[in-house]
């Protein structure tokens, strides 16, 4: 097990390196640069600014310096767009915001989704099932960029219950709408996967055996059916978790949270190379980490899997 974890972490190093290289060269091929502006900079100014950020050096050297900076000093470089901030500043400000609303949304989506899925499965083909299925389909059909303005319209303008956006250090009033908007489509997916997986498990032989032995239904569901049901759910939740905590540009745009998703999109548009690379590494690292955790969870859920 430990060997497996170490091996996986070691493989992550070249994976991330390849990610950095691809990302770096993709950025370089995009037209325009960080200092392209409507009125072109005088050559001397451009030369100076490029020298300041090391952009006058050959690509391989820029890349090398960047990676060395990360490894030796954990320095992800400066932002070219926001001169008084480094990539580390941007991550340390935006990531906690995104992590907060992403994590809460994840928990909400998982609890609501799994409960709804299980209820729908054990009350298969009853009114409860139809309501649950109806709810998940509606939730899935409502993308968050439609949901967000509607929520703001209802809760802020019409009811006057919640602030229409902002973060304010993450007070709960500011969290409600981002969490609803972000978790909706996720809980719908979780519920649908849980429902179909549970239905399959409930029809399997070992459940029939358990029922034949006369075990009460609650014990069957909790003790025997739930764990195998969660297998496909977990494989969905791993990447979904990374997706949620690395932010949603839609949430950031509509709720002005100051989260990291908006920075990521902006960095690409502004050709803010270091910010873009830094955030890509963060996303890449988290993806690798949570894929590993998902695999470890598998082993716990399914005794047949051993590493």
């Amino acid at each position: 097990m430990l060997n497996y974890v170490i091996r996986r972490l070691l493989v992550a190093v070249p994976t991330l390196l390849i990610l950095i290289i691809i990302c770096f060269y993709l950025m370089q091929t995009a037209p325009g640069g960080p200092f392209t502006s409507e009125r072109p900079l005088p050559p001397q100014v451009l030369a100076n600014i490029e020298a300041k950020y090391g952009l006058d050096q050959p690509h391989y050297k820029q890349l090398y310096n960047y990676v060395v900076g990360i490894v030796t000093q954990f320095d992800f470089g400066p932002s070219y767009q926001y001169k008084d901030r480094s990539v580390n500043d941007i991550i340390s400000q935006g990531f906690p915001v995104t992590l907060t609303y992403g994590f809460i949304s994840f928990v909400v989506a998982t609890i609501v989704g799994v409960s709804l899925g299980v209820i729908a499965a054990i009350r298969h083909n009853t009114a409860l099932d139809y309501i649950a299925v109806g709810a998940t389909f509606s939730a899935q059909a409502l993308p968050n960029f439609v949901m967000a303005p509607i929520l703001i319209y209802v809760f802020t303008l019409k009811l006057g219950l919640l602030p229409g956006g902002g973060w304010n250090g993450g007070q709960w009033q500011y969290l409600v709408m981002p969490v609803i908007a972000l978790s909706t489509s996720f809980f719908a997916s979780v519920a649908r996967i849980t429902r179909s997986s549970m239905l399959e498990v409930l029809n399997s032989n070992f459940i029939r055996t358990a029922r034949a032995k006369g075990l009460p239904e609650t014990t069957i569901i909790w003790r025997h059916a739930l764990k195998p049901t969660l297998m496909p759910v977990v494989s969905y939740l791993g990447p979904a978790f990374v997706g949620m905590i690395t932010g949603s540009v839609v949430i950031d745009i509509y709720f002005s949270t100051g989260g990291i998703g908006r920075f990521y999109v902006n960095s690409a548009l502004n050709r803010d190379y270091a910010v873009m690379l830094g955030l890509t590494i963060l996303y890449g690292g988290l993806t690798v980490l949570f894929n590993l955790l998902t695999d470890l969870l598998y082993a716990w859920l399914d005794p047949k899997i051993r590493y």
Partner: protein
Amino acid sequence: MKMTSKTLVGALLATTLIASPLYAAGTHPSTGEALADNQSFTYRLLDEHSSVDPQIVEDTSGADIVRDLFEGLYNQDADGNLVPGVALSHTTNDAKDVYTFSLRDNAKWSNGDAVTAGDFVYGWRRLLDPATASPYAWFGELMSIEGASAVLAGEADPSTLGVTAVDDHTLEVKLTASLPYFALMTTHGSTFPTHQATVEAHGDQWTKPENIVSNGAYVLTEHVPSERSVRVRNSMYWDNDNTILETITSLVINDENVALTRYLAGELDKTDVPAGQYPKLNAEYPDQAHSNPRLCNYYYTFNMSGNGNPAFDDVRVREALSLAVDRSVITDAVLQGGQFQAYTFTPGLTAGFVTPDVPSASMTQAERDAKAMELMAEAGYGADNPLKFDMLYNTSEGHKKIAIAMSQMWKQKLGAEAVLANQEWKTFLETRGNQDFELARGAWCGDYNEASTFLDLLDSGSGYNDGKFNSARVDELLTMAKTSSDTQPLYTEIEQIIATEIPVIPVYHYTRVMMLQEDVKGWPFENIEQNVYSKDLYVVAE
């Protein structure tokens, strides 16, 4: 004398009370209006500003904040006229190439240091020093300061710049040419002073709230990137006694419809009106919806570099395309925010500029269309030989609507087929800057209130002249205008050349369409540059 903490607090309170008279719950010192208890102002920003460093900032949202945090030689009043800032007055020599500014002796930085002429010298050198890499360095060059070009090119030391602190309160500026509107340019943020010790101590980080030292009516107290920025009154500001607004908060809200919803819910005091919604909002909230002229133009430029569409070499084709654009459809049906139809490049409300008579402006649209069809036929284009060209704009819903409307007009009236292409901003700039287009969108907001801020864009040597229009006469007239005391005939001739040669299709001149809560007063609606000084705003009691 030994001070106990109680007496200290008492003393502090007393000085605070003396230093800042409590206007809250009082009346306005000059208008006598009853003031609200809560003197705070919250407004929407489209996106995070790039910087609050006067010499670095390049976006208008950042420039608005800089205007509150720093103060230059002159400010503008509600009508856009110059009023004293740090400078009380100035004199010039007969040749108008040496300006001497007398600075007030009570101006202070937020840390208590006196604002001196040396601070301006430092700021201006910093603007032009290639090491600063200011995106607005060209503005210093445009101001014709002696030595600016050499400093900017790295050929001379910044200390050779023609700006001198004669003494602490006298600033002398030498120009390479007589520039009648020089003083007007000192309201631009890039000419504001900066505090040398702070910049040197903190480097790029000096603009963070914990480091910044500024000399304006407000100080920066909080900045959460992409969320909010807060500025509060600067107790050291020389005119703090007459400043009423206590706190100004800018919130970054990317989506304009969400911003409008939040405005209507009372969370904002000011926001922008999304395109097309002005008539409805104006009907519903006549006292809150405002549309005021803005010093900006919107146009399409032909590529005249030789790389473009050969059909555009024919002036008849360019003229036909320009004539066939029904500006009223764009202003009244697409934008609906009181924008002005444009037949000249320079907005009509630019100071000291009278819109010249150009033939197309006085024609009816039916006459324009008839002439356009005639010209196209003469140029050899018709149903059997339709004109086909590419039309480029930067990605935006608004630009798309306008491009579609224009291309439809050309299709219906002239049978011409415009192939629309949009690119995201940086790619667009690169494409346009490399003359890799046929017809491209352009827009410009004046950096100062004088026609040359627009017409300079058509100078053959201008870095912004992406269409590469090249007219020796226009260049000559622009050079003459720099030093002329009567510029109107020169600008009239330039506009007439533009109207005949048609290097660009002027489409409309901007308005700023916004919602402002009724209780906020002092907004400079008549200032066409839309330079807002928060120290002049106040909130009245309901």
